[in-house]
């Protein structure tokens, strides 16, 4: 109803608008058209705002839909295939059974029935702690080492062959060495994380240092800046994006490796939990663990991408 009357008024307003434009030349404008102009002006001022508030919202929803729809569809497809595949029974439980088990599990993720029976939350936190320590130590060693390799060719030529030799070795091969040296499972797992996260950090940092634009280095040379100034004012900001890439790759690998390492070392942790549940033949729990590992990995990655965006925006 209302839209009809507005469009009618607008249609009527058109000739009136023209007459007002001519008004200064011809002074014989009568009252009624002027009133009509006032009315249509009010109408006009009302209609655009209504339209404006309508379309962006719709557009927002549209954009959100376009963003969310494909992943949701993909996830539904995965669950659908899983459901159909497990319909006829077998060793792998279906989505419904897993969902039920998850509800029980997540009802109390932080229970504590002694060191051998901890809630799922504790296990995830224990793994994250190991990754955090191992990765942090790797960053502490790897980033400065990367800087030095990038800056001093002699050192790079000396160390690069060693890195090429050791990097392809599966981190798990280092586990026995860790066990031998530290005589304990926990630091051995951390050590494995350290080894696997250090390579991407060294290599990316070194590469970043080598790719610092010559122009910036020329500025440093003309000013004859001290090595400290070169590092803090030129190298570090220029290398930061590369460093963050290295950190992201490291965290990814570390999270991959921790599960395997914990399966071997035992104790508390998501990897060990998976192994424990396998021994108890609780396959639902293994599937839940797979989801948890995936989601935590995803969150770590996204958090670092966000951090990288924020830092590089500030520095450029």
């Amino acid at each position, binding site marked *: 109803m209302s839209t009809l009357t507005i469009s009618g008024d607008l249609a009527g307003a058109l000739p009136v608008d023209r007459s007002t434009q001519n008004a200064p030349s011809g002074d014989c404008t009568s009252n009624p058209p002027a009133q009509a102009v006032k009315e249509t002006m009010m109408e006009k001022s009302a209609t655009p705002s209504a339209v404006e508030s309508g379309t962006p919202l719709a557009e927002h929803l549209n954009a959100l839909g376009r963003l969310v729809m494909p992943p949701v569809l993909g996830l539904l497809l995965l669950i659908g295939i899983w459901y159909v595949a497990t319909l006829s029974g077998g060793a792998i439980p279906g989505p419904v059974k897993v969902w039920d088990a998850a509800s029980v599990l997540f009802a109390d993720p932080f229970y504590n029935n002694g060191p051998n029976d901890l809630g799922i939350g504790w296990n995830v936190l224990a793994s994250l702690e190991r990754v955090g320590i191992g990765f942090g130590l790797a960053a502490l060693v790897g980033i400065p080492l990367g800087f030095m390799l990038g800056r001093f060719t002699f050192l790079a030529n000396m160390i690069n062959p060693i890195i090429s030799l050791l990097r392809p070795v599966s981190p798990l091969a280092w586990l026995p060495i860790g066990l031998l040296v530290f005589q304990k499972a926990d630091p051995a797992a951390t050590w494995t994380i350290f080894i696997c996260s250090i390579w991407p950090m060294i290599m990316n940092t070194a590469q970043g240092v080598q790719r610092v634009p010559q*122009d*910036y280095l*020329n*500025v440093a*040379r*003309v*000013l*004859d*800046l001290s090595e400290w*100034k070169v590092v803090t*004012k*030129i190298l570090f*900001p*220029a290398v930061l994006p590369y460093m963050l890439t290295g950190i992201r790759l490291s965290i990814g690998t570390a999270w991959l490796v921790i599960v395997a390492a914990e399966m071997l070392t035992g104790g508390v942790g998501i990897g060990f939990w998976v192994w424990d549940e396998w021994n108890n033949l609780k396959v639902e729990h293994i599937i839940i663990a797979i989801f948890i590992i995936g989601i935590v990995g995803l969150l770590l990655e996204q958090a670092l991408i966000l951090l990288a965006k924020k830092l590089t925006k500030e*520095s*450029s």
Partner: protein
Amino acid sequence: MEKFVQIEKVGQTFETKKGKFVALRDIDLTLRQGEFVALIGHSGCGKSTLLNLIAGLTTPTTGVLLCDGREIAGPGPERAVVFQNHSLLPWLTCFENVYLAVERVFGQKEGKAKLKERTAAAISLVGLDHASSKYPHEISGGMKQRVGIARALSMEPKVLLMDEPFGALDALTRAKLQDELMKICEKTQATVVMVTHDVDEAVLLSDRIVMMTNGPAATIGEILEVNLPRPRARLELAHDAAYIDCRAAVLKFLYEKQAHVEKIAA
């Protein structure tokens, strides 16, 4: 007059994928202290290459360069460079970019307040007070170039090396900075080498104009003495017979004797 910068039998050869490329050969040039020299020549002839050699950023393949009696072994703040592509650090504000240089040169002797004062003075010299706290990506190309100039001037160098410093500027700003530069040079008695494509600029500012032949294997073609009294005023010079002669000589060199670049390009 005293020889301040000496370039003796200098040649520069680059190793490229296609083999050796001789950029410069047989460059002989001596600069007096306080002299203003313009380097002019067609694009790609090796002007930046020569400037980098004087800066010490590169070492010559043959020959030797001396500054103040000592061999130029590397770059240093007494030979400031205004780079062709401004080369500001993108993560520092204009102020911080200049401050980095000021701090390096005067940081030993002077306090923070004095260093900041110097920085602000250099920035206001190029008329950028309002953009002082902006980042390079927030200002125009010409403004970036001016920050680059401010950075070099702030160091009060003995030798000022400028690679087309006013190339990206509009005519008005360019004229203003040229006048400013003349005043600064008179005051500081700095020795200046300035690469330029602009014949009027070369004649207005220089004591001598060094004209380079086309590359490859470029060398100095002619050197023109500009015997115009200082201080020079651009408006009066426009009708000065000596000025017009100098201008004609440079144009003749560029567009008659060294014209083949143009022909190839056309």
